[in-house]
């Protein structure tokens, strides 16, 4: 009897040890990810914090590293984001409205559009750069390597994000609201414009900010589209040559291969600036969601 009890006891103990071991292993997986993220952040802050100051932001890039700054890159990024937003908001929201409110999902052409969007979300960003190069920079539109071409290329890249977020936000509006509106004699568009869309705006706005957060850090498409690396002026218009924060970072990292001490801090400071902007954008998105989210 006691021998049996002993066997059962030890089996239980070893099983509990295995359980605990497994649990710790899983936590280690997450822990390693957090560790790497921490190392990355510390490294960037360590290298760059010292260099991130008002001079840095207000100076242009220059041959002499200690005078170089990100003004052109920062403004380039701002302009790019503006063009991108002006493209993705109407097109993305309109597509989301069409797919949710008008399209009969049984039809083949509507299903084609949906599959299309899913696939576009998985195309590598560098391929979007090629698309921009072939059709916007050169090819039929021949815009050249300008802000407009760059902004539109980024817009096409992140458009699926807005469409997907928009669809979810619209879908979250209960059918009873639409029924109530239609039963009063409102048309379909009146119902969408005055009931569905206003209720979906917080979700849509969050989606747009998410899309812009992705676009702001993209380097490869801008490289392919021909963003300049050494520019000492802010964008003067949609048809102007441009640079952007990621491009400037790339340029400085490349130079750092030969001249670490001068260029590594510059790159790190620019990265820090980029990350701060990203954190701000995401905070706005979270605040928007919490403040305005409709609980039905």
């Amino acid at each position, binding site marked *: 009897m006691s021998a049996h009890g002993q066997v059962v006891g030890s089996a239980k103990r070893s099983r509990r040890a295995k*359980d605990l071991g*497994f*649990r710790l292993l*899983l936590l*280690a*997986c*997450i822990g*390693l*990810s*957090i560790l*790497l*993220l921490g190392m*990355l952040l510390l*490294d*960037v802050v360590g*290298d760059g914090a010292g260099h991130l100051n008002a001079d840095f932001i207000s100076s242009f890039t220059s041959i002499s590293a200690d005078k170089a700054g990100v003004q052109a890159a920062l403004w380039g990024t701002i302009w790019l984001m503006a063009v991108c937003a002006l493209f993705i908001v109407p*097109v993305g929201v*309109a*597509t989301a409205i*069409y797919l949710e409110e*008008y399209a009969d999902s049984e039809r083949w052409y509507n299903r*084609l*559009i949906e599959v*299309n*969007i*899913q*696939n*576009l979300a*998985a*195309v*590598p960003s*560098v*391929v*979007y*750069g*090629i698309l921009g*190069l*072939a*059709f916007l920079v050169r090819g039929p539109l021949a815009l050249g390597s300008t802000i407009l071409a760059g902004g539109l290329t980024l817009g096409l890249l992140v*458009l*699926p994000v807005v*469409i997907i977020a928009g669809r979810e936000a619209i879908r979250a509006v209960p059918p009873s609201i639409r029924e109530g509106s239609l039963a009063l004699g409102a*048309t379909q*568009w009146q119902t969408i414009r005055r009931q569905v869309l206003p209720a979906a705006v917080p979700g849509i706005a969050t989606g747009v900010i998410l899309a812009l957060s992705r676009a702001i*850090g993209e*380097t*490869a498409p801008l*490289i*392919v589209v*021909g*963003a*300049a690396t050494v520019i000492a002026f802010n964008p003067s218009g949609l048809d102007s040559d441009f640079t952007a924060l*990621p491009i400037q970072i790339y340029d400085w*990292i490349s130079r*750092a*291969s030969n001249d670490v001490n001068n260029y*590594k801090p510059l790159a*790190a400071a620019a990265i820090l600036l*980029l990350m701060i902007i*990203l954190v701000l954008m995401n905070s706005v998105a979270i605040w928007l969601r919490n403040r305005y989210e409709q609980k039905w």
Partner: protein
Amino acid sequence: MEASTTTAAGTRAVPELGTARRRWGEDVIKALLVLAALISVLTTTGIVIALLRETIDFFGSVGVWDFLSGGKWTPLFEPGSFGVRPLVVGTFLITAIALVVAAPLGLGAAIYLSEYARPRVRKTIKPVLELLAGVPTIVFGYFALTYFTPNILQDLLHLEVNIFNALSAGIIMGFMIIPTVASVAEDAMSAVPHSLREGAYGLGASKLQVSLRVVLPAALSGIVAAIVLGVSRAVGETMIVLLASGQVASNSVDPREPHFSLASFIGSTAGGDTPTGSIEYKTIFAVGMLLFVITLVMNLISIRFVRRYRQVYE
């Protein structure tokens, strides 16, 4: 149609339905919306046309078989060699290393979040993973090149690696795709009905056994989808490879050496000044075509698996 009949006080005039005027405004709006939706179709068409046109042109001067199977990639030489194999080798070497990192860590995180974590813990871990997912890839590339390679690989682990090497790029890329793998895998595991777990717990199974023997197999198609999606992202990633793995087209599978990938080659070659129509220009598109096809196929496979696990449980 009918005149109003007044009977008792308070009755209204009989309303006329009349003939409907077609609501032009509604039609215009619908047309505009359709146009917007077509932009996504146009984008895909544009990508395909852009790639196809130059690729076909490219295959005018370079044989398809030479391209796909040749082992020497020297497009700028006179005469050039256009065997894409080194780029493919580099791509999959780095992807494989990334998978070695991302699959266990991503799945581990997913199992923990799905089976073990209490709601409060989940609330803290998920934002961290989202933060990881939000870091721009150029930042990962910077970290790989300036910190990970010199400090971790060379100093800490005493590995004899080139300053540009595939190992660093692969490992950091692995961390980059952990959030992708973890979120899709966790989604799949959460979709497994509780009744399956409860049945096993009722028989006296431990959490370990339930996670590994009940949930994992049940969520298998979703997990496969997660990994395929992760691979697809790794294959298409440019900046980490471009910065950390150098610009050498090499057939060797030695991760300590620099390697081009398909994407990083495009990134390094394209730039504002490649003349249109030159062979250099065309290589961008030919390599881009190959990259596009590979990621497209992987994405379709992944969608298939996602649909399978959704079908089973919903």
